[in-house]
Structures are given as structure tokens and as C-alpha cells.
């Protein structure tokens, strides 16, 4: 089996854009994705048996159609159901083929990581209960199925994704019971903050808001979830509205089947190697592309995938005169959105001590205070003594929150480090891998090197 020149991880807009650009330049490219078909999250495609189609903005649909056509016409070797497991000590790239149940050690000359974004989710009492999921999860399952989730759903957190998902649910016939938004975007927008510089955002947002108004979906601003409790097979969600400072916050209760949370997005880069020059012992050039490099959204991801491909061509000695696309407009747009949706009350304030921070290991805020009181004053000690970020998610959903709360608990000015672990020291596997697959691994390099522990 011949090895590809370049291995691309992630068949979302950045990965596909990078892969087709490289293939069109004459390189052999293998494109791996954990899912059964390309698209990633933003361009998640309906399953073959989908019951309908989630409405998405026309520009977004056209963007994916163009990429999918180029992919189909290219010589890119697409491998669905394949998960990136990291690099071993010799620089071999490990990928798990889920269907075959094997892990392969590959030696491409270049590796492009396009693993997209992951959502920030702030802890709330009861967020570990079944029925609580991310708004992005609700959206990808809705896109795959072509129909909205059944039952009563509450959307809560902060950010434009909440209104987009709410509008999509409404247009498919099952609107959420309400959208609970921690920011006050209307009040901020009234100050004329930069919206005129980003007409595309304004146009899209106005469309979503009009849909919510038409379907009478309450959109509560300056509001946040303070408690989630199991209630006879459903969830009882308590929402506080209004800042604690000026007035007593108003408390509202909702009984729902599902609570979808969203507090922003960040690169899905836990355990990923940094951009790297090829190493002497055969490790590849490594570049990141798209949201996993910098979370700027789907349109930017296409441009960033092309940028990464051209940078890789230069690394591999191919002349490439095309200028890099300008991402400053996308950065401006993200800055405007961040200002618009800034929470009125800081999400980590007022957490009860029994609030779970690390859901995998069931560690609470009280546990964090205890491990600090017992003498831990670095993130590493908190992790090793307290088990924070040591569970199956490898810190993906708890490390950032734990680090921020730890910094508050320690003396002012202390720099405790991070429970996420520094990228340079990340060891494979960066995602859980079955032992059976490792045992069945079939090295594909001519020298027949087995997997190496570091």
C-alpha cells in the first residue's frame, strides 16, 4: 500500500478545501474523517434516509456544494470512519479505522489537522444529567435526521448559534420553549456597535429573529440557567433573569425534555500537535487549518484550508505564488459577535459548591477547593491529586473552567498552568482507542516499525 504525500484529518470545510487544493496541485492526499460522510459540523449532511432538510442560509449551501463537487472530481482518497489518534515517538501518524478495528502507522510528508471547533460549556448545577446536551449536538443530529428533536426543548447560554438553532427548529415545526441568552445583544447593538461593518451577520441575525418572533418563541436576554434537576423523567430548569447587582433577579421555571447549552466555541485542539517542521527522524510537516487553528467560522475555514494547503506546498518544495487569503474581516466579525453576546453576569460566578466541574470523574467545585486547601498550587497538582481533567474526555469540557476557577482560588498573580496539559508533551492516543484495535494494528511502513511508546 503506498502512503499519501499528505494526510488531512477532518472533512469539514477546512479539511476538504485543503485536500482538494493539494490534490489539484498534483499531490496524493488521504482525507480522514471520524464520521460516515464529509461535511463536518457546519455542513453536516442529511443521512440517506433523512426525513427532511434543515434550512440553512443559501450562501452556506452554495459554499458546501462547490467544495463537494471539487472533492468528487478530485483524486482525494476519502476515508470515513477514521479517527486521528496522535503521533508516536518516531513521528508516525496513528489513525484508527473504526470499521476494520485497526490502527495504522502512516508516514506522510505532510499532515494537516482540520478537526474544527468544540463548544465551550460552562458548568451549571445538574448539567451532568441525561437530557442536557450542547446546542451544537442538537443541531448536528437535527441536520443528520432532517427533523427537529421531539418534545420540549430549552436553549440556553450565549451566542448567535442559539438563535440559529432555535430558528431552524421553528421552521421544521418544533420550536424550542424559549431561548435563554446571557447577553443583552439588543442593548449592545443599540449603541451602534460595528454592525454596519458586518452586513452579512446583520442580515442573517435579522432573519433568525424574525423567525423566532413569527413562531412566538420567547427570547430572554440577560438570563441564565441557575439549576437543573431531574423531575419525573423530565428536567426542571430554573432561570434567573436580571443582574444581581441592581435588582433581585427574577426566577423562572421550565419543565422540559431537553436542555441544549452553548457558551461559545473554541478550537477542537486538545492533544493536537502544534504546527511543526518535518523532523529528522521522519515526522511530517504539521499544519492546522480552520476552526481548530482559530475559531472564525465556516466561511473562513474554506479560505484557511486553502492557505494551509499552499503553505504545505511551499514546505514540500513546490512553488506557490498565490497570496494567502485575508482573514481580518472574519476576525472583525467574531469580535463584533463577542461584544454583542457578552454575558451580563460572568458565568462562573455564584456556582454552588456541589456543582460538578469535571463530569467524567464527577469532581465538584467543593473538591477543587479541598485539593487547593490540601496544598495543590498548580494545575498539574490539581489534576494528579484531584483527578480533574483525567477522565475520558481528556479535559475537553472541563480543563478551561477548572483552570479559571483555580486561578481565582490561588493567590493573586499565581500562574498555575493548565490541566489540559501542554501541547508539546501530548502523548498518543489523543482520543480513546480500543486495545483490540491496537493489538490488531498493521504497520504499513516498509521498515515494518511497530507502534512506539514515548
Amino acid at each position, binding site marked *: 500500500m503506498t502512503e499519501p504525500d499528505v494526510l488531512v484529518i477532518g472533512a469539514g470545510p477546512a479539511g476538504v478545501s485543503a485536500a482538494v487544493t493539494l490534490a489539484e496541485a498534483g499531490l496524493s492526499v488521504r482525507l480522514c474523517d*471520524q*464520521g*460516515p*460522510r464529509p461535511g463536518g*459540523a457546519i455542513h453536516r449532511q442529511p*443521512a*440517506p*434516509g*433523512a*426525513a427532511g432538510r434543515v434550512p440553512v442560509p443559501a450562501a452556506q449551501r452554495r459554499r458546501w456544494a462547490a467544495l463537494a463537487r471539487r472533492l468528487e472530481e478530485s483524486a482525494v482518497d476519502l476515508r470515513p470512519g477514521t*479517527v486521528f489518534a496522535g503521533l508516536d515517538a518516531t513521528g508516525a501518524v496513528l489513525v484508527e479505522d*473504526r470499521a476494520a478495528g485497526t490502527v495504522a502507522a502512516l508516514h506522510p510528508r505532510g499532515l494537516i489537522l482540520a478537526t*474544527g471547533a*468544540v*463548544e465551550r460549556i460552562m458548568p451549571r448545577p445538574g448539567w*451532568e*444529567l*441525561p*437530557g*442536557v*446536551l*450542547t446546542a*451544537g*449536538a*442538537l443541531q*448536528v*443530529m437535527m441536520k*443528520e*435526521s*432532517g*427533523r427537529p*428533536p*421531539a*418534545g420540549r426543548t430549552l436553549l440556553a447560554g450565549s451566542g448567535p448559534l442559539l438563535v440559529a438553532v432555535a430558528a431552524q427548529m421553528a421552521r421544521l415545526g418544533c420550536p424550542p420553549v424559549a431561548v435563554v441568552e446571557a447577553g443583552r445583544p439588543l442593548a449592545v447593538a443599540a449603541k451602534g456597535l460595528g454592525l454596519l461593518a458586518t452586513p452579512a451577520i446583520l442580515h442573517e441575525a435579522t432573519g433568525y429573529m424574525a423567525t423566532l418572533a413569527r413562531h412566538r418563541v420567547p427570547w430572554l436576554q440577560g438570563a441564565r440557567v441557575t439549576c437543573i434537576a431531574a423531575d419525573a423523567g423530565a428536567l426542571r430548569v430554573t432561570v434567573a433573569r436580571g443582574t444581581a447587582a441592581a435588582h433581585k433577579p427574577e426566577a423562572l421555571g421550565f419543565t422540559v*425534555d*431537553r436542555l441544549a447549552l452553548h457558551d461559545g466555541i473554541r478550537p*477542537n485542539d*486538545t492533544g493536537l500537535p502544534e504546527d511543526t517542521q518535518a523532523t529528522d527522524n521522519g515526522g511530517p510537516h504539521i499544519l492546522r487549518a480552520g476552526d481548530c487553528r482559530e475559531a472564525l467560522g465556516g466561511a473562513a475555514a474554506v479560505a484557511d484550508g486553502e492557505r494551509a494547503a499552499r503553505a504545505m506546498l511551499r514546505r514540500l518544495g513546490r512553488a506557490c505564488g498565490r497570496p494567502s487569503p485575508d482573514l481580518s474581516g472574519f476576525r472583525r466579525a467574531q469580535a463584533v459577535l463577542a461584544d454583542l453576546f457578552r454575558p451580563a453576569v460572568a458565568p462562573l460566578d455564584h456556582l454552588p459548591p456541589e456543582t*460538578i466541574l469535571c*463530569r*467524567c*470523574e*464527577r469532581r465538584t467545585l467543593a473538591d477543587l477547593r479541598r485539593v487547593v486547601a490540601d496544598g495543590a498550587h498548580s494545575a498539574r497538582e490539581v489534576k494528579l491529586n484531584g483527578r480533574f481533567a483525567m*477522565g*475520558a*474526555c481528556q479535559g*475537553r*469540557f472541563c480543563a478551561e473552567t477548572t483552570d479559571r476557577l483555580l486561578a481565582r482560588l490561588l493567590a493573586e498573580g499565581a500562574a498555575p498552568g493548565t490541566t489540559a496539559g501542554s501541547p508539546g508533551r501530548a502523548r498518543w492516543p489523543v*482520543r*480513546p482507542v*480500543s486495545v483490540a484495535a491496537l493489538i490488531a494494528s498493521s504497520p504499513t511502513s516498509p521498515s515494518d516499525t511497530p507502534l512506539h511508546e514515548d
Partner: protein
Amino acid sequence: MSGATFTWNGRPVPFLAGQSLAAALDAAGVRDLGADGLGSRRRVFCAIGACQGCLVRRDGQVVEACLTVATEGAEVTPVTSTTPEAHHD
């Protein structure tokens, strides 16, 4: 709906062709995917294979429900199921 089903704890669950176990279970009203052995309940949370919260046992093998396409006749149970069929390893 094609009529195809897999089983969850022995109970038939319909699915759309190409749909993930996670989406099919959610559509069937199944949100609790069993105990995780540390006091929490497993459940679909991120749906992108990042959180490992939706682990289930499909035909004896532990997989993420959100990354696994539903297939006709698959036997899906909680990871820590105590039914005799789960004690193969």
C-alpha cells in the same frame, strides 16, 4: 421510516438509514444511556465524539453512540449492562 430497528436493552428502536445510534435513541425518547460506574449517567452531550459521554455497547463492543451508524438487528446496551450477553470479555 423503513421499519428497520436495532434493540436498546432488548427494546426495538426505529432508525433512519444512515442515522447515528445517538440520534435514533434521542428520537425514541431514550436519554439515559446507563450508569458510568462513577455515579453519573451516560448520555449524548457533544455528538461530535469529543466528550465520550455517549458510550454504549453495540454487539459487545464499546463505541460512541454519536459516531456509530445504526444497523438493522444491532444489539445495543449500556456499557455496564448486567445482562448475560454483556459478559463476553
